[in-house]
């Protein structure tokens, strides 16, 4: 099943670990991803419905924690970097191009619905769990945070627990 050659998993993991370590040493925080989604969402709501954003608790709490506005945020810059970096990597390894990927027996409609629903669940779950695979699980493991490791365990437990019921999507 290997169309394009990927980096050795252990080497990639080691490099990712060193990057995470450097990030913690330089900035005092780990890597993240879902925080950027949150910042963009808050920015969009503040632009579209400023009165609402000024009244609802979630946006008010967010504004109190982030003085420079939602877009002047560490994770937003990092996420832009991720897009750039992945693009460069795809360019170098000749993997660029529009492609719709799905399991062999899944229909396009199933996959679209699945991707939308899955994204939605991540949006909710990562807010509730205070981070996703990067910010809670991976970075949490690096600093040995109980909360981060707990979230990680339940992400994987959930995925394994539910995998059987959605197997049509993938195998």
């Amino acid at each position, binding site marked *: *099943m290997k169309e394009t050659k*990927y980096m050795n998993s252990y080497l*990639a993991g080691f490099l*990712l*670990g060193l*990057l995470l*370590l*450097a990030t*913690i*040493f330089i*900035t*005092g*925080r*780990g890597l993240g991803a879902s925080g950027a989604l949150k910042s963009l*969402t808050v920015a969009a709501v503040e632009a579209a419905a400023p009165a609402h954003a000024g009244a609802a*608790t*979630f946006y008010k709490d967010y504004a109190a*924690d982030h003085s420079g506005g939602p877009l*002047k945020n*560490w994770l937003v810059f990092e996420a*832009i*970097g*991720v*897009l750039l*970096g*992945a693009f*460069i990597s*795809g360019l170098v390894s000749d993997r660029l*191009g529009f492609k719709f*990927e799905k399991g062999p027996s899944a229909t396009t409609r199933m*996959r679209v619905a699945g991707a939308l*629903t*899955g*994204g*939605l*669940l*991540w*949006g909710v779950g*990562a807010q509730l769990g*205070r*981070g*996703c695979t*990067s*910010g809670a699980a*991976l*970075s949490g*493991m*690096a600093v*040995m945070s*109980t*909360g981060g490791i*707990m*979230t990680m*365990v339940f992400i994987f437990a*959930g*995925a394994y627990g539910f*995998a059987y019921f*959605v197997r049509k*999507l*993938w195998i």
Partner: protein
Amino acid sequence: MGPLVPDIISGNLNFIAALLIGVLFGMVLEQAGFSSTRKLVGLFYGYDFTVLRVFFTAGVTAMLGVIALEHFGLLDLSLVYINPTFVWAAVAGGLIMGLGFVVGGFCPGTSFCAAAIGKTDAMVFIAGAFAGVLVFAEGYPLFESLYKAAPWGNPRIFETLGISQSMFAFLLVIVAMLAFWTVSIIENKVNGVKEKPVRFTPYYIALASAGILLAGSAFIFTGRKASLLKTVNAPGFAQDYKLETMTPDEFAYRLMNDRENKLQIMDFRPEEERKKMNLPGATAYTLDNLFEKAPSRALLFRGKINVFAAEDELTERKMAIIAEKMGFKRIKVLQGGLNEFREQILNFKPAKTASKFELENTYRFRKKAGREIRELIQKAKPSGPATRKLKRVLGGC
């Protein structure tokens, strides 16, 4: 000493660092194969365990790196973001994300990578994720009680489990290695590969040795504070350790006549003791302060004599030894502790007859010093903490 933000790297430079870190993050994820949804989900159906290998290797590497940096005093963990623990939010959020993983085929970071190289399914996923954040934001009043339930603060996993940091790190590396082995067996079975999953080739021997080395290093890089404390608490060690001391008389003299402002008293007493008797000009100090970036700087001021004060000399000695082992210089302990100082100076009662001339002088000095210092103590303000703590960086997702 890390972290470099906000002292060395600040403001906009931090955002440039974020961008560069992001670029590297994206590159590694994409090169590892995380831009393909089928490769990611393979983890849950047994045909491709790339994610587990990359993820676990990265986590273990970074964790041991953090342990090593902390061991050598290069990283102040009190300034590093430790994800807070809210039990029920972690459980519920984790399960929701797990369901999202198998339904959507991505997690947020990997969906960015996949979208960046043109995967349209990832773009749909990202659209869904925005909707999800919006759902949470709008429904926040509904989620709030769950979101904030059972706050445990920011405990570390080994504290929660009640084992040593080294033991946890060691066990995690071993578990990771066993997991790599097991998943290779499963992977080959699912994919119908006949080859043995682990063979005696240089590649596997190198991998296993690297793993064993990493696991062992957990015991070399012990938590700095814990290991130093263990050293000084060994019976007899602190009493016999050679340290510079300051007699109560000299201490009293310097308290009264410190025109050059040379004396810097680090007051290691607990708060209630400090409230009962303020030491003039002292700085409230704790064991933790010694390991913290900003407060420990006070010990580096040039030309100061740092006197460690506590009720008893043994506590002073322990703290001073730890400070010396960490490379701080010009540290003295108050002979006999503040107990002795109280007896000798503050509440000084001379023996009925002073037999010798020198003793008479000493008595006179002590009486005078006791009186003056008692006044100084009356006037002294409560000693403030070493330095205002720098704030932890706000992290997480």
